[in-house]
């Protein structure tokens, strides 16, 4: 079908076409549109081999598709818990003596002890005081020296202010301020406590944190480990060295 054949040539033909009813008017109108004409041609060509495809797809109730998709989406949402608050990813439990490794340190919390004054080991206490110590084996796995203060942030002890802890090397009793890359060290977190504050068999709750390395830019220079993220919990039993001996 071409435009030349179908378009009314004369006013009379046009009048005839107008009065011939809606069907013929529609076909005449569509025939005057080149794209519609091509569409009709394509449809007829397809009508031979793939006509059944069109016939089948015409039967698909497309208006239902949106509804069906909505039902699937809501169903999937409900299956994952709907609008209920999602549970925080839990922290794993870790045993004393097991190594924890992050981008900053590889460390093993070994034991907790309650001790008396021992000037030979560098422990000086006032009357009525005891020393609570947590022994940690640590290696700095970063490429630069790291302040031991960051290790204290990696190992948070419930109820103890990290700022009050002093960190001492076990082998020579020197206070540690920096840990060198890949050099392992045996250190102790030390805290002076009241004589009755902790007893043999008490359990310390430790939270092991991973920190993120933040490199300052724009208005801040330098880099720091920030945002402690709890990753593991540990229960550590306090041993009283005086009770043991």
């Amino acid at each position, binding site marked *: 079908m071409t435009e030349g054949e179908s378009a009314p040539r004369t006013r009379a033909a046009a009048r005839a076409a107008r009065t011939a009813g809606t069907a013929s008017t529609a076909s005449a109108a569509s025939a005057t549109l080149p794209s519609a004409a091509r569409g009709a041609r394509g449809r007829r060509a397809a009508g031979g081999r793939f006509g059944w495809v069109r016939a089948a797809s015409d039967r698909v109730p497309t208006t239902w598709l949106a509804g069906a998709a909505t039902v699937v989406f809501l169903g999937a949402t409900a299956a994952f818990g709907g609008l209920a608050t999602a549970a925080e990813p839990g922290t794993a439990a870790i045993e004393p003596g097991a190594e924890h490794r992050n981008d900053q340190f590889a460390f093993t919390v070994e034991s907790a002890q309650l001790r008396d004054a021992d000037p030979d080991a560098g422990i000086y206490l006032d009357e009525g005081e005891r020393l609570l110590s947590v022994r940690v084996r640590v290696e700095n796995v970063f490429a630069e020296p790291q302040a031991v203060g960051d290790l204290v942030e990696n190992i948070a002890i419930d109820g103890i202010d990290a700022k009050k802890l002093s960190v001492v090397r076990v082998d020579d009793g*020197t206070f540690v301020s920096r840990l*060198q*890359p890949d050099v392992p060290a045996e250190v102790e977190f030390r805290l002076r406590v009241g004589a009755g504050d902790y007893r043999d068999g008490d359990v310390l709750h430790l939270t092991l944190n991973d920190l993120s390395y933040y490199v300052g830019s724009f208005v801040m220079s330098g880099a720091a480990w920030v945002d402690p993220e709890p990753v593991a919990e540990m229960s550590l039993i306090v041993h009283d060295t005086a009770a043991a001996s």
Partner: protein
Amino acid sequence: MKSWLQWTIGAGLVVAAWGVAALTPPEEAREAPFPVRAVIGEPASGRNIETTIADVRRADRVTAGAWSADGNWVVVDLTVEAVMTEPASLALATLTIGDRVFSASERPKSLAQSALAVGIPLSGSLAFELPTDADQGEGTLSLALHGDSRLDSVIELPIDLGALPHPPSIELEPTGWTNG
């Protein structure tokens, strides 16, 4: 304008832009430290630091008075003084090996973090505790007055770890003022 001339000018401008981009110093260059290359036994002077590195050695054991420790140690004997102003202190003493940076150990009494005086050399040692696998390769000793060394002098000494004298044990020099 001729078409070939337009193309030539266009290509020339692209090459010129590439050249400018290649020649532009990196962002951190405008606040980079000023390195001063040191030679063992000769004084090296920076803005407010002058140092003479006498000796660099490696040992498996380091002692300082009653303190001692085994390990893989690099010991640097040196004298250092301020040049213009006080207060000043040897706040930066690092040994860079590959991509790892080690700072002078605070375990023994040493020159690390010592306060310096203008014109009065302070002599002593610096001890670096290294992992056992760090026994080969090139390193750089850096000395400066601030932990943040940007825009200030940094005395730098290249060190070949494998070529260092390696006595079994080293006693650190006691830190003390020296006269000239």
